[in-house]
């Protein structure tokens, strides 16, 4: 029915769909038609920015003979994009860039998807999370902030974040557990909006990614307190108030034993062959070597860990278990899961 409808109304699109199946895998595979890079999030967000930068780098340095097309499929917290790639059996011309919703969306909504339905290609980077407060507020350290949260009646301190039952709220719940007090979590559509709500003092703190809040930090509007990683970020260039990303202490060193980083990685559809995976791994190695990629990493203070193959799959497996535990404790699992 789906194919019939598309062939009737849209011959061009249908031909792409119908041709999708079964291309014989030969040695040193290469794409034979345009490659779709699916973004399971809206335009303008972190994953979208990264995907479009990759597209720009590949175009500018002619790293592929076929064009790369970025397509946003953000419906159902990204579920639309994951299901699309899951159904792309034997279609090596469709890849997807993921964020934490790879785990959180199926757990929270119960849609029929698991990352094992896809073929892992490569981890491109890890995105950091930083605890931010408004610069006009008196708290200068994590301890001062925690004391203020504890002193306030439970639920009166507002934490702003991106999405519901996703990474920002998971960190918030972990914070509540560590502090022993309650926040009121307010979900917004995008990270940039969250940062501005903090500047306007409509929320009291956020756990924005560096790239989402850096502009406000440089403008002297927000203040970073700590980073949710095992070690400080690697970038020592000065950003604001004579401080760089490296000067932000880890939350653990400040008495908040919480670590959370977010995957920025590439997956393919089911049943990809080794040649096809190798092609994309090599491609992304070339992308990572370009100065444009280095600039993006620096501006967003990314953790530049790169992984492929079984090491990558192992990492994703561990993260999945961790998310399941975290979300179960927070009561975020969909009924029937």
């Amino acid at each position, binding site marked *: 029915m789906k194919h019939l409808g598309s062939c009737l109304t849209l011959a061009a699109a249908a031909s792409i769909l119908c041709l999708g199946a079964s291309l014989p895998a030969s040695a040193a595979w290469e794409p034979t038609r345009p490659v779709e890079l699916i973004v399971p999030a809206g335009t303008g967000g972190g994953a979208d920015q990264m995907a479009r930068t990759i597209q720009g780098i590949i175009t500018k340095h002619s790293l592929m003979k076929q064009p790369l097309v970025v397509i946003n499929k953000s419906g159902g917290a990204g579920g639309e994009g994951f299901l699309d790639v899951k159904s792309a059996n034997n279609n090596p011309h469709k890849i997807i860039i993921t964020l934490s919703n790879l785990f959180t969306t199926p757990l929270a909504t119960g849609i029929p998807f698991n990352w094992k339905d896809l073929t892992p290609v490569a981890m491109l980077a890890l995105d950091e999370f930083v605890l931010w407060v408004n610069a006009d507020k008196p708290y200068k350290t994590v301890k001062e902030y925690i004391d203020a949260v504890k002193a306030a009646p439970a639920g009166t301190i507002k934490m702003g974040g991106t999405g519901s039952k996703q990474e920002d709220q998971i960190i918030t719940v972990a914070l509540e557990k560590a502090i022993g007090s309650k926040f009121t979590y307010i979900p917004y559509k995008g990270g940039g909006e969250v940062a501005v709500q903090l500047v306007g003092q*409509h929320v009291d703190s956020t756990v924005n990614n560096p790239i989402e809040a850096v502009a406000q930090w440089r403008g002297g509007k927000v203040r970073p307190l700590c980073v949710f990683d095992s070690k400080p970020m690697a970038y020592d260039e000065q950003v604001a108030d004579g401080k760089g990303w490296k000067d932000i202490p880890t939350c653990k060193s400040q008495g908040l034993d919480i670590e959370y980083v977010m995957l920025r990685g590439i997956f393919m559809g089911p049943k990809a062959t080794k040649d096809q995976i190798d092609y994309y791994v090599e491609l992304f190695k070339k992308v990572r070597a370009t100065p444009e990629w280095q600039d993006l990493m620096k501006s967003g203070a990314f953790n530049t860990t790169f992984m492929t193959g079984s090491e990558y799959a192992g990492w994703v497996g561990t993260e999945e278990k961790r998310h399941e535990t975290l979300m179960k404790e927070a009561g975020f699992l969909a009924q029937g899961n």
Partner: protein
Amino acid sequence: MEEIANLFQGFAVALQPFNIAVMVLGIVLGVIIGVLPGLGGANGVAILLPLTFSMPPTSAIIMLSCIYWGALFGGAITSILFNIPGEPWSVATTFDGYPMAQQGKAAEALTAAFTSSFVGALFAVVMITLVAPLVAGFALRFGPAEKFAVYFLAFCSFVGLSKEPPFKTIAAMMIGFALAAVGLDSITGQLRLTFGSTELLNGFDFLIAVIGLFGLGEIFLTMEEGLRFQGGKAKIDLRVVLRTWMSLPQYWMTSLRSCVIGCWMGVTPAGATPASFMSYGIAKRVSKNGNNFGKGEIEGVIAPETAAHAAGTAALLPMLSLGVPGSPTAAVLLGGLLIWGLQPGPMLFVEQKEFVWGLIASMYLGNLVGLIIVLTCVPVFAAILRVPFSIIAPLILVLCAIGAYSVHNSTFDVVMMLVFGIIGYALKKCNYPLAPLVLAIVLGDKAEEAFRQSLLGSQGSLGIFFSNTLVSSIMILGLIALFWSVIQNGFTRLRTRTAAA
């Protein structure tokens, strides 16, 4: 005065031959994108973004923002000619633009729409030039409660005026709200009303609904009426542009009001769509020709178009100065800025003067170039209506299908569009107004989100909507708009009573 000096420097940048060429190319591409329903400004800019990576950042952003202007202009064309809004903010333009086209006044409607767009955008650019820092600060005061108040005002200023029976208006609006609720609930992260179907994960996209309800519904009606396009006798004459221009100055009050509404909505940033609806609603209420609205009144084209463009332009201000996009297209432009290593935010105006003022100067020039290009094409656009309906109807259908498909690259959407077309036809036959339904689909989930965010923050107390002067005054304006006809009746009765006594 430093701003003026900077602006002239900006003009010097924007007037380089390469940048002018880029500007014209951007406008033409933008108009094409705007005409294709579904492709839309945001998608168009996203698709063309990689093209610009090899250019210097200033030229690149000039090209992208010109695509944006072009799409804003282009959205009006299909709204007026075929009743198919290419962009959400063009919906209100169809209310009077399409009846005008049916009466053979397509050229007048197009001229009015393009000129109003230009006026609105120009007003917003002047505002950006003069008061950028002040206005940017105002946007920060908008939390969830203030945003909800703005949506509330948009609904109220639109609902109170409907000529259809209130019951039908409310029924249509409730259908819209129900459709808007489908998909992921952003507050709880749960799926709603999808009934286990993975196709409904995304909810009903506004564009699919509008292409179906307005575009297809209209084609079905025309088919029933005997395959005739009533606008076929449109004259092709460039003089009609001048004639229309002569008549425009008398609507200066509507224009000015719409400019202010647009700028306000763009900066807050609620966006161009509520601005266009609100402006149309208020114009209908206060204009002395108010009763003709919906039957082909030129003022009903001027009001929404002016406001939409003032808002679309003003939306770039919070993007540049705060890093918050006021529209989906602005969000893609924002992504572009980051790729060129330009960090939007409070420091952009300080650190990247040449870029910012080059962009602002290109807004002036881009709009002017855009206006000249689209105005010279008015006769051509209007002439499309002279093509026999039996030829153009299948073309429109194909265009609609492509548009619906390209929103999410999904064939399911094409089927949904057909379903909406049938619904639109049925509702029109039963005299249910479509506008409140569409308004609810566009703004319903946003209003709901803002409402629930506010209540989360206030721990469930409704007092938050009257907690400071800003939010209270917007809410009270909304209530006045909602009960306007009652208040007016009351006054009239009071006056007659005093006169009698």
